[in-house]
């Protein structure tokens, strides 16, 4: 509906979303040393999905798939250390010298963060789907106003 009414919103959201995705990725990786992290990154990605849904650029779907992938990642990182007789959720840190990037340090907590982000995205998608966002966003006529009883 909004997409039908406002080209500014549609084009604006379309133009901004790649940048927002970059910001989200930055938050995901920066989280270990600076503000950010999996939850924040997931929210940024979720906001991108939500805005694009409003603008009619995207149909929210597969929320459960995102949740499932995220849960699998998180569960794997949590349980795998047990196989090596370590504690549940113990994390490993890898440090390496890479071309172009210089000294890079990443831990298994990055995978954990990725899983958290995927779950947050999945929840946002599920909420959008549950609210019937697709019909609302792509419907050309505004839906009939109806009052909801208490």
């Amino acid at each position, binding site marked *: 509906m909004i997409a039908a009414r406002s080209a500014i919103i549609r084009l604006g959201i379309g133009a901004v979303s790649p940048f927002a995705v970059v910001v989200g990725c930055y938050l995901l990786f920066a*989280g270990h040393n600076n*503000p950010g992290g999996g939850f924040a990154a997931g929210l940024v990605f979720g906001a991108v999905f939500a805005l694009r849904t409003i603008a009619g650029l995207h149909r929210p779907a597969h929320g*459960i798939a995102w949740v499932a992938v995220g849960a699998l990642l998180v569960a794997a990182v*949590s349980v795998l250390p047990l196989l090596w007789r370590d504690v549940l*959720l113990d*994390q490993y840190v890898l440090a390496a010298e890479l071309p172009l990037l210089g000294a890079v*340090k990443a*831990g298994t907590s990055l995978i954990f963060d990725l899983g958290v982000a995927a779950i947050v995205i999945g929840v946002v998608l599920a909420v959008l789907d549950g609210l019937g966002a697709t019909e609302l966003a792509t419907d050309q006529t505004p839906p009939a106003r109806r009052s909801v*009883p*208490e």
Partner: protein
Amino acid sequence: MILGLLLLHLAVCGLLAASGRRLGRRGLLVGAVPPAVTAIWSATRLGTSAPQTAEVTWVKGLDLGLTFRVDAFGDVMTLIVSGIGALVFVYAHGYFSPEAAGTGRFATTLLAFSTAMLGLVWSDSVWSLFIFWELTSVTSFLLIGHKSAEGTALAAARRTLMITGGGGLVLLAGLLLVARAADTTLISQMLPAHGASAVAGAVLVMVGAATKSAQTPFHVWLPGAMVAPTPVSAYLHSATMVKAGVVLVAVLGPALGHLATWQTLGLAFGIASLLWGAGGALRHRDAKLILAWGTVSQLGMLITLFSAGTPKATLAALALLVAHALFKGALFLVVGEVDVRAGTRNVDELGGLARSMPGAFWTAVLAGLSMAGAPPLLGFVAKEAAIEAALALNGPERWAIGAGVIAGSVLTVAYTVRLLVKLFGPGPRTEPARRRTATAAPAALLAAAGVAGYAALGPLLGVLKSAAGRLAGGAEMPTLYRWPGLTAALGISLAVLAAGLLVGLLVTRRQVRVPAPRGARWSDQCLEATLAFAKAVTGRVQHGSLPVYLVTMTAAAALATIPFLGSVGVGHLFAWDTPLQAILAATVVGAALGAAAVGTRLGAGLALGAAGITISAIFVIAGAPDLVLTQLLVETVIVVGFVLAFGRLSRRFPPVGLRWRSVRLGVAGVGGAAVVVGLLAASHNPAGAPPIAEMVSGSVGEGGGKNVVNVILTDMRALDTLGEVVVLAVVAVGILALARAPADSGSPAP
């Protein structure tokens, strides 16, 4: 070896599950291999006194794990479980026709049961005992419901699961109490336990055992379970699973046998089942039901003897345990063969099978005479020992047990005579179909074992004595006699045989009315009433009104802060760090009041957004960039959500009546006050200094990151985060399920 055998069972189980469809009926022969191997292993162990143990530790500090211990008694039970198991597998290969559907699934489930039953008799720790106990209930449920197209089979399976599974829960409570009273979870190390928790535990354990061993009044599931294929009835519901309760009473005897409650309860269950079951067996016409009621009666006898607990009674019970597994298994197999070949199990429609099925006839006669307690068979030795044990008691128990055992034995002889005469004696002639070797041979073997047990009583006695010694705490063991000489017990025994023969012939002549399965109906009605009650409660509680849910939750949360009212203090409060905080706080309050006062939905949404964003400004002043970031992002997504939701809702809030408005105002006020109370109480009573310094140093060192907040989230307190994301995932699933539920369903989904 113990673990190896269990793994062999599991591996073959997996193989059958994977290729059961392709193997079909041959899967049953494959399934016979693990029990056969186990039976040979236990046969080689018979008579050796050293117990074998095995252990798999899971959590050491909690004594959690699987602990197995096979001693002399375990060997006897293993031989029964696996030996009869192997025979039943072979028998089932002949019982099912080659075209029968689902034989692969049947073989898998039957082997799974066999594994669980072995685990049960080998378990030494109460934890493993309970787990395998419930596994046998579950596999029994699956096997009874094997013909899943039949409503009666499903009802019977459900009834069984409810009674035996529920009994398992009672048992768990009992085992916990007993383990606490005895101060160990290992059954073999339990010493006589005392105290209130031992008594309570004994009652619960005995009730659990009674549900599994079909003791009156919990026996109602056993007759219904006869809808299962006959191999299941022979294996689970006469020879092994129903013995689980008896085994439990036996192995806990050393720990609980001295308690008067244990003994009284056991004798009450046992004697009631002994008589009630035998009475039932005299009245039914379905040959399998006659045997099932007979099983109830025999199990009652076993529980009675084990509860009595003297060395004589224990030895008699063991002999009866072995004899019963042999003769009842053989009789079930014969009845199954008759069913397959003659097409009916109704004894009124059968007759004259002695000539047309001579093999089955002689098998049934041998097994039946053993059941009746006639010489020269193992059943005679056991019955003789039981009467002898009852006579050797003192006081009122002597009369109660003696009368129960003698009356039960008379009835047992009577129903055996009735069954044999009706099946094989004169009556309507039925032409049986072709003979199947696989069904005849196992039954004949079991019946012949009864004769062999009598002939080779010497070696058998040695085995039984060492098993009974383990159960009776190493007391001096009496002996069993092939022929006791002219004793009072022999006189009683012969009188019992004569009286039973007379009663049996009289009953055979008379047409008796088959009793209605009242107990089964009552238990089904109980279950249905429970379900109806649950549905009514759900309908009342889950009314579907969102505002009422919200009010209920807020009020409940507010009530939870009442205990903290006493620890509220205000001495530590100060106005602000910077005056800017006061301005921001005032803005938040204003926005919140605005959200409550404004009449349009869009206005309320904007006011809420204002409150949220102002709070993030407060975080900025506090120097918490992570919180600021998260708060802003959450507010953003929420605003987008509002925009979408408003498309579906009216522009203004619906009008609210004065009463409902005052309720909401009141609950909101109480909720706000509760938050204030909680915060004041918490900040007034700090539990030590905040662990900031450790967190910071730990973060850089262990976590490898400079952002303490995130290292806490993903490393130090990662378990909390894990729990939170699981909650998020569940919420996502819930939202989708709600959104996709049919909108018109007025009642909650079942």
